[in-house]
């Protein structure tokens, strides 16, 4: 999971350096939240993905799963009310919603591997037009490898989506024909939310569904290292100020 944290950290550094194009981080999370249906069982990665929970539309009840053995957790408790042994996979304090349950790690990953999690949203280093995801390692020599539960989540969840800045802190693409970093999973991603666009992955590669206000298809094609088809009904994201 902290691979997401790392991806997110890279993104944040990026944010510090240049004026931000397109959606804010919170708006990206808001956009992803609109696609979460009432009653869904959802696992959110560390970083921007976990912000999604705050923006699920009113009237939809969602059950959040964390790999370390809790279903039905809620937001961070008020300061002073944290319990040391009530934490999420990011090791941060959580609260419990009605209908919560505890279970051991093998049961928790049975939920993941067995296809019981409806939606998983993760960060990414690279996403490929064939749905491959790289988000755990750059493959750099000398690095200590660490994978956490990312490979289990992408292999097991019914729908796996990515939230990521469209380019890296150095302005380099994160969407490719094929990933060059070590993979987290093959052909696992079905939708990508970036600060510039919502892009689906179809059998024919990337398909532009929505763009951030003021972002043109040409700009997106320049910042995307893969061919980008445009949906007939491609529209502009209307996100609230966040």
């Amino acid at each position: 999971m902290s691979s997401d944290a790392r991806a997110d950290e890279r993104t944040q550094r990026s944010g510090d350096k240049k004026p931000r194009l397109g959606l804010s981080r919170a708006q990206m999370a808001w956009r992803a939240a609109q696609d979460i249906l009432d009653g869904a069982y959802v696992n959110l990665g560390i970083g921007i993905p976990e912000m999604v929970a705050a923006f699920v539309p009113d009237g939809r009840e969602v059950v959040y799963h964390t790999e370390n053995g809790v279903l039905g957790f809620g937001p961070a408790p008020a300061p002073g009310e944290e319990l040391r042994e009530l934490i999420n996979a990011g090791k941060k304090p959580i609260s419990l919603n009605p209908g919560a349950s505890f279970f051991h790690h093998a049961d928790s990953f049975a939920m993941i591997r067995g296809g019981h999690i409806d939606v998983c949203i993760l960060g990414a280093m690279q996403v490929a037009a064939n749905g491959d995801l790289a988000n755990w390692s750059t493959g750099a020599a000398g690095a200590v490898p660490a994978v956490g539960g990312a490979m289990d989540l992408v292999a097991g969840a019914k729908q796996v989506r990515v939230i990521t800045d469209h380019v890296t802190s150095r302005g380099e693409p994160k969407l490719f024909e094929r990933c060059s970093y070590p993979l987290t999973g093959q052909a696992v991603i079905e939708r990508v939310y970036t600060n510039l666009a919502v892009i689906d992955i179809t059998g024919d590669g990337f398909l532009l569904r929505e763009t951030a206000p003021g972002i043109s298809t040409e700009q997106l094609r320049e910042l995307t290292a893969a061919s980008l088809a445009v949906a007939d009904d491609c529209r502009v994201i209307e996100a609230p100020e966040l």
Partner: protein
Amino acid sequence: MIDKSCPSATEAVAAITDGATVMIGGFGEAGSPIELIHALIDQGARDLVVINNNTGNGQVGLAALIAAGRVRRMICSFPRGTTDTLFPELYRSGKIELELVPQGTLAERIRAGGAGIPAFYTATAAGTSLAEGKELRQFNGRDYVMEYGLRADFALVKAERADRFGNAVYNKAARNFGPIMCMAARTAIIQVGRIVEDGEIDPEHVVTPGIFVQHVVAVEQPALESELIAQGASYP
């Protein structure tokens, strides 16, 4: 708001189609979801593949479903009951197929199905006729048999109580196959004595987390197989 409760057993089993694979919980009469099975008999689906440890007792519940000719194939460990049933006759006359699986292998196959494990190895049945035709493999010098995970379209399970999320607890030895069948079925339907309010089940005590349950039906006074048999009941 999430609410998996369903007003009746009839509505809960309505989607079961001909040819469906149905896991049915219970070991002996403990945990046998009789009302759900009877609703399935009324519902009419045929050519079912049924997974249960046994083949029922008397002329009620699973035994009645089989006697009604609705089961094409049984996957079980012990196709005998505490009373005579029609199963042996149907089996000998070729009217029902039988896949005999050792009980622990059956349980593990169901658990594997629910946990996304397509196959695993077990020493159970190695060197016996029940391993014939199966892949064998040695680990550390010992023979193991490869067994496949089992999934189902539906599970019919009896629990004690559940909440609107489907979080369930069981009664004593009625737990048996219930939790793993809920995991392994695309649609798990549980009948419970009582649907409780939020918070009545301690998160530490949940046995089947609601993620594994799709429909909850309240059956406040569930019938007990042995009592029905003692009364000479038969269904329908």
